[in-house]
C-alpha cells in the first residue's frame, strides 16, 4: 500500500492548458476514480502519475518517494516508478504469445526464470486464460485481451495500480462482468488504485472516492454517496446519475410562509435554498426522488404524462408540467397510458439548489 500525492500539477499542450493546478491525495489502499468527459484531463493526470507525461509544474509523490518535481529537477522515469498500468487499448505486444506477454512483464523484477514462468502461469489461471496461453493477441476477442492485461497486473503485483478506461472497448454485458473482476483485482492485490473513466456508473460502483474533473479542474472530490446526493456544482450534478438529473430554473418566492422555487409551470419546495427571496436559482431533482400518483394528492402538482419507458425492474416516465419537462424513475414494470393526468410530489430534502451564475451548490447541508 502506498499513498499517492499530487500537488500543483499543471500541464499544457501548446497554449491549451489541460490540467490546471491539480492537488490530489490518494490514500493507501484506496480505490479512487477520476471521472469526467473526454478532454477533461483525467488521462493526462493518470499518465503523469505513471511517468508517461511530464507536467509543466508541480510535485508527485509515490509513497515516501518524490518521483517528480519540476522545481527541484526530479524526474524519475516510468520504468523506475514501480506502478502498474492497464492501458485503454491493453497494449498487448502483438508479436508475442499471451504467456510471453505476461512473463516478459516480470523480467525486470529480478526473479528467476522458473519463478517468472510460475507466476505468469498462475496469473493466467486466475483470469481463466490458461488454455489460450500460446495464442497471439490478434487471435483473441476484446474481453480476452483485457483479461490478459489484467493477468499482467496480477503477475506484477504492483503497489500502485493505474487503469485507463480499461472497459471502454468492451460490449455492455462484458463490461458489467469485468467491472467486478477489476474490483476483485484491487482487493486481492491490496494496492492503491487510480481508475480513470467517463462512465459514471463504473465510478459509482467501484470507487471509494470519486474525483470529478472538467476542463482540467477538479469539480468535486468525495465519496460516491456525496457526489451523487450532494453534487458541488451543476456540472457534477448533470454528469452523475442515470437517467440524468432534472434541472429546473426558477425564482425564489414566499407563499404562505414557505419558500418555493417557482419555475415555468412547476413549483418546488425550496426550504434548503440558502438564498434570498427573488433570487434566481436552478433546482436539481433526481428522477427517483419525484413521487407519482394517479389520483390527486393535496399539495402535489398535476402533470401530463408524455411517455412511458419500462426498462424491466424500473420504469422511466417523462411528464410535462406547464413548460417544464421532468423525468421520473419509479420501481416496477408500470403500464400507464400516456396522456392521462398524473400528480407528482417532491421531497424537500432531496432537492439541491445551484446558483446559475457560479454553478455552485447553494443548498443547506
Amino acid at each position, binding site marked *: 500500500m502506498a499513498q499517492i500525492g499530487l500537488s500543483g500539477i499543471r500541464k499544457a499542450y501548446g497554449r491549451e492548458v489541460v490540467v490546471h493546478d491539480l492537488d490530489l491525495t490518494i490514500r493507501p489502499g484506496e480505490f479512487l476514480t477520476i471521472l469526467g468527459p473526454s478532454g477533461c484531463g483525467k488521462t493526462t493526470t493518470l499518465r503523469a502519475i*505513471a*511517468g*508517461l507525461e511530464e507536467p509543466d509544474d508541480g510535485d508527485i509523490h509515490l509513497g515516501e518517494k518524490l518521483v517528480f518535481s519540476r522545481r527541484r529537477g526530479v524526474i524519475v*522515469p*516510468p*520504468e*523506475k*516508478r*514501480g*506502478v*502498474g*498500468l492497464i*492501458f*485503454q*487499448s*491493453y*497494449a*498487448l*505486444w*502483438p*508479436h*508475442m504469445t499471451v504467456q510471453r506477454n505476461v512473463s*516478459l*512483464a*516480470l*523480467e*525486470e*523484477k529480478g526473479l528467476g526464470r522458473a519463478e517468472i514462468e510460475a507466476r505468469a502461469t498462475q496469473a493466467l489461471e486466475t483470469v481463466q486464460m490458461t488454455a489460450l496461453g500460446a495464442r*497471439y*493477441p*490478434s*487471435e483473441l476477442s476484446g474481453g480476452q*485481451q483485457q483479461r490478459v492485461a489484467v493477468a*499482467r497486473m496480477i503477475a*506484477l503485483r504492483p503497489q500502485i495500480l493505474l487503469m485507463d478506461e480499461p472497459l*471502454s*472497448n468492451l460490449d455492455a454485458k462484458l463490461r458489467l462482468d469485468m467491472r467486478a473482476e477489476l474490483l476483485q483485482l484491487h482487493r486481492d492485490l491490496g494496492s492503491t488504485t487510480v481508475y480513470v473513466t467517463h462512465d459514471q456508473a463504473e465510478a459509482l460502483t467501484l470507487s471509494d472516492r470519486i474525483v470529478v474533473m472538467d476542463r482540467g479542474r477538479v469539480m468535486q472530490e468525495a465519496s460516491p454517496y456525496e457526489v451523487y446526493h450532494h453534487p458541488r456544482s451543476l456540472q457534477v450534478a448533470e454528469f452523475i446519475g442515470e437517467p440524468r438529473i432534472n434541472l429546473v430554473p426558477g425564482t425564489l418566492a414566499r407563499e404562505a410562509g414557505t419558500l418555493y422555487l417557482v419555475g415555468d409551470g412547476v413549483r418546488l419546495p425550496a426550504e434548503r435554498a440558502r438564498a434570498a427571496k427573488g433570487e434566481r436559482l436552478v433546482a436539481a431533482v433526481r428522477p427517483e426522488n419525484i413521487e407519482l400518483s394517479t389520483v390527486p394528492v393535496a399539495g402535489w402538482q398535476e402533470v401530463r404524462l408524455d411517455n412511458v419507458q419500462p426498462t424491466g425492474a424500473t420504469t422511466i416516465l417523462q411528464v410535462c408540467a406547464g413548460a417544464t419537462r421532468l423525468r421520473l424513475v419509479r420501481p416496477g414494470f408500470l403500464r400507464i397510458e400516456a396522456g392521462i393526468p398524473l400528480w407528482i410530489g417532491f421531497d424537500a430534502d432531496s432537492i439541491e439548489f445551484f446558483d446559475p451564475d457560479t454553478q455552485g451548490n447553494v443548498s443547506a447541508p
Partner: protein
Amino acid sequence: MTSPGAARRLRYHTVRLRNRPDLVIGYVCLVALGFLVLGPLVEIVRDALTLQPYDLAYHPDGVVGSFSLFHLERVFASPLSPALFFRPLLNSLAVGFWVTAIGVSIGSLLAWLLVRTDIRCKGLLGALIVIPYMMPSWVMALAWISLFKNDRIGGTQGFVASFLGVQPPDWVSYGFFPIVVTLALHYFAYAYLLMSGALATVDSELEEAGAVCGMGRWKRLWRITLPLLMPALGSAIVLTFIRILGTFGTPALLGLPVRFFTFATQIYASINARNNGDAFVLALVLIVIAISFIWINSRIIGIRKSFVTLTGKGFRRREIRLGLWRLPLTAAVGLFVASTVLVPLSILLWESLILVAGDYSLDNLTTHFWIGQGNVRLAYGEAGVLLNNGILTALWNSLKLATLAALFNGVLGLLVGYAVVRGRGTRLSRGLEGIAFAPYIFPSIALGAIYIGMFSAPIGPIPALYGTFAILVLITVVKNLPFTSRTGIAAMLQIDTSMEESARVLGIGWFRRMARIIMPLSMSGLVSGMLLTFITAMRELSLIVLLLSPANMVLTGVIFYYQEQSMPQHSSAVTLLLVLIIILVNVLVRLVSRGAGVSGLKNS
C-alpha cells in the same frame, strides 16, 4: 452433364461477374500482366536454353534456335566460369550485403530520429533526405571520382589530390570501398522511405507498457520496437539488396580501373557483345536470387501471425525527448544530409561551368554551356543547355513520359489494389499480387531487350509498338508496378468495405463509386505511388535505352549521349537540370496535396 445445365451455369457465372467488378478487373489484369511480365520470363528462359547467333563461333555447325545446354555449361561449368560468373557473383553479393547493411542502418536511424524523436527542423530535413534518391545513382560515383581520383587514372588531379597534395590509395579511389560507400549514400534514402512509414505506425503505448513494467530504454527497443518493425525491416533489406544486385552505373565507373567486376557489369558486357545466351543465364540467376530472398522474407514474416495492428482507441505516437542531444543530433543529421545532397550537386554545377578540364581556378568558369549559342570550336558546336532545342525537346519528352507513366501506373496500382483487397484470400488475389510484384526482380536491361522482341510485331489488335512513345510508357509502367501495386493495396486496406457497401446500397454504380469514394479516400497513397513512379521514370536509363529513338529522346538519353561524346560540361549541366526538375516537381506535388487536404504522403 446435360448441356442446358452447363449453359445455365455459364450464364450464372457471367451474371455473377457483372456484380463483381473486382473479379473482372482481377482477371483482366492477371491476363494482361501475365503476358507483359511472364512473357519476358519465358523468353529469357527460352533464349538461355537455345543456340543463339553469337554461339555459332563456338558451334559452327549449330542450328540457331535448337535446344542446347551450352550456355549453362559455359556459365557454370567451364574454365571461364570463375571470371564470368563466380567472382562477379561474390563481388555482387559482397557489395549487396554491405550496402544493404550500411544503407538500411543509416536509413532506419534517420527514420527513427525524424519520426520518433523531437529532433528539430523535421520538415526541412525530411524533404532534403530523399533527394539523394532522386538523383541517378551514378552521380554520387562521379562526385567520388572528382574528389578522390588518383594518378592511377592520371589526367587532371582530383580535389583531394590537388588540395591536400596527397594521392589517395587505390583502394580508396576505386573498387569495393568506394562502390559500397557511394551506393550506400544513395540507397539509404530508399530505406529511409520504407522505414519511416513503418515507424509512423508503431503504437507508442506498446513501448509505454514496457516502460511501466520496468524495461529500460534499450530493452524496450530490443524486445518491443524492433520486433514490431521486423516486417518493414525485412522488406527494406530484401528490396534494397535486390536493387543493388542489378545496379550497373556505379560499379562500372568505380570498378573498372581496378578490374572489380559485378554481376550487372557482366550482364551488360554480354548484351553489348550481343551474347544473349550468357546475358540471359546471368539474368536468370539474378531473378532466382531475387525470388528466393523474397520467399525467405515472407516465410520469416509469415510465421508470425501477429503483426496485425490492433485497432481501437489509444493509438499514441509520442515523441522521445532527446534533451541535451537534440541540437548536436540535429546538426549531425543536417551535416550528413547536406553533404549527400550538396556535394554531388555542387560538383555537377562546377563541372558544367568549367571551360578547360582540370583547371580549378575561378577564371576558368563560364556560362557558355548553359546559355551560350554554340561555338563550333567547342563541343562540336552544341548550344548551351537552356537554349538547346534538342535538350528542351528531350526535357519535354521526359516530363511527358514520367507523367503519363505515373498517371497510368497510379490508376493501375489502384485497380490492382482494389482487386487484390476485395478478393482477399482467393487464388486470383494472391496470383495478381504476385504478378504485380514480379517486374521488380527483372534487371532493367534484360527487360528492355526482351520488349524489343515482344513488340516488334503486331499482337492481335495492338500494332507494333516498337519505336513508338507508347512502348516507353508501357515498359515504365510495368517496371514500376511493384511500387504502385503495393501502395494501392495498402491504400485499399485502409478503406473499410462498408464505405463502398453503403454506396452500393444507395444505388451508386461502380465507376461513380471509384471516382467519388474510393479514389479520394486513397488519394494520399495514390499520390505517393505516382510520385515515386515519376521520380524513377525521370532518372531511368537502362530500362529504355534500347527502345529510344531520336523522336523520343529523353533527358537521360541525352546525358548518355553527352557522356559518350565526352562533353562533360553538357552532361553535368543536363544532369543538374534533371535533378532540379525532379526536386521541383516533388515539392510542387507535396504542396498541392497538402493544400488539397490530403494528409502527408504516407509510404507503403
